């Protein structure tokens, strides 16, 4: 085991029904760095995070976090391991029956015996870090999408985890809150020294903060390297993705029979 790696993914295979989502994925995620996993929509990036968090079981291969094989752990040990990780869901996934303050306090209350005063201090510190100390009394339904994600980030770092998994943190944000979130991801990584995995298809934003990038498509790692080295890669598919060209080796059309034949053949029953 390599000490400098926090997460190792080896030969990961996963399928949903007939559809093969991953056909042998290898990833190495170093400690203290921001590693980005990019790829077109529908390549199963969120699924990959759920596999890392042990919420889904792979068909083959393994995920090791801090030297522990996630999918071999008994249920109790898995939940203990998860206390050392934070995950930021795309929707924020705040508990809708708890206020902003109580949402951030939740991990502290269930996993620690801290006094009420101490919980309050920590919650306010975390909310201050995401700029929402003033919103502590609001309910999740009163927040905008960007604020929801920031509160969720405060909750994810409440227990000072070693690893934080971001699921599409920038998607669907206006330019200002996008900028705020980009800065926050960077700041949290630097200030707390934690390891970050950012799953995203927002190429520009992700490349500005990532230390290392994996591009996945068709269930495989297509390319990996530092953001600078990806720019001058020879692979046409990677270039297409990074520069956002609509058609190219990654086709615009979903696989279909020939257009003319399809229209001219009138079949009553398919």
């Amino acid at each position: 085991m390599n000490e400098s790696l926090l997460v190792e993914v080896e030969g990961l295979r996963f399928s949903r029904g007939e559809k093969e989502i991953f056909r042998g994925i290898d990833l190495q995620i170093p400690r203290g760095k921001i590693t980005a996993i990019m790829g077109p929509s529908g390549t199963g990036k969120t699924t990959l995070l759920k596999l890392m968090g042990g919420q889904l079981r792979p068909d083959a291969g393994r995920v090791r976090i801090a030297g522990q094989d996630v999918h071999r752990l008994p249920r109790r040990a898995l939940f203990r391991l998860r206390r050392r990780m934070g995950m930021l869901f795309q929707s924020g996934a705040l508990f809708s029956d708890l206020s902003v303050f109580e949402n951030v306090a939740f991990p502290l209350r269930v996993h620690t015996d801290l006094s009420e005063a101490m919980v309050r201090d920590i919650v306010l510190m975390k909310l201050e870090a995401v700029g929402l100390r003033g919103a502590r009394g609001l309910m999740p339904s009163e927040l905008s999408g960007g604020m929801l994600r920031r509160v969720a980030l405060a909750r994810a770092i409440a227990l000072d985890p070693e690893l934080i998994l971001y699921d599409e943190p920038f998607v669907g944000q206006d330019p200002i809150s996008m900028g705020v979130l980009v800065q926050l991801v960077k700041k949290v990584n630097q200030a707390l020294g934690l390891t970050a995995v950012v799953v995203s298809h927002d190429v520009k934003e992700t490349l500005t903060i990532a230390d290392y990038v994996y591009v996945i498509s068709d269930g495989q790692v297509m390319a990996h390297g530092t953001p600078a080295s990806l720019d001058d890669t020879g692979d046409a598919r990677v270039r297409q993705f990074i520069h956002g060209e609509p058609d190219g080796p990654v086709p615009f059309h979903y696989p279909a029979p020939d257009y003319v034949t399809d229209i001219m053949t009138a079949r009553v029953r398919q």
Partner: protein
Amino acid sequence: MSDRHESHRQGLPGASFPRAVFRRIRALGRGTLDMVDALGRAGMILVLSSMALPSREGWRLWLRQMHFVGVMSLAIVLVSGVFIGMVLGLQGYTILVDFGAEDALGQMVALSLLRELAPVVTALLFAGRAGSALTAEIGLMKATEQLSSMEMIGVDPLRRIVAPRLWAGFVSLPLLTVGFSVVGIWGGYLIGVQWLGVFEGSYWSNMQDSVSFFADIGNGMVKSVVFALVVTWIAVFQGYDLVPTSEGISRATTRTVVYSSLAVLGLDFVLTATMFGELG
């Protein structure tokens, strides 16, 4: 996909017969496997959540759910109980008075309620009022990734979300059944004694003589406990296991009410046959 292509290529009318039969057999097999699989998942949920050790936090969560599941169902259960009791009083009186046996009204009302109507009707009302709400609530938590995020915080949603609801349903339905019986008997009294003029002493004394604590009240409560387990189990399983879309939630909520009602009525027959079968 592939067999559609093959049948298209062959296009023989004779070839479609065994193909259709095989498709049926395959569908039957798959359906059975899916059902066994779902039963297994339901069993896992029951075991993993009900084994949670009671903690101080657990008590608090349970009490909160007792409020939502039990107390909030009280109104509908009690109102229905009064009306069922009143109807029993009316119907029973019109039949009994023909034989000059209206003194036995108390016995009739009490036995019908305790043995049969209170456990069954309360369970059906409970499935509609509380079961569907449980399914929708847990399902929406799943659809909005609240269950997933709780897992990633390192808290088992089976213990935190499912267990308190399961136990609250399990405890509150038998209590609601007791309430239903009490107000039902009072409803019968209201109609029989106050309105139709049955002698008050015989209404109560006939009831006292004929109702046995173990055979009638006890067996009725056994039924109620079984229904409580089944209805709550179905409700939390449907919520936890649903497809997290708006359509999935609506289907699961419907399934909760349909499956619970069928299970209650079916089990009622089985339990009646085993417990009261030899009473004659």
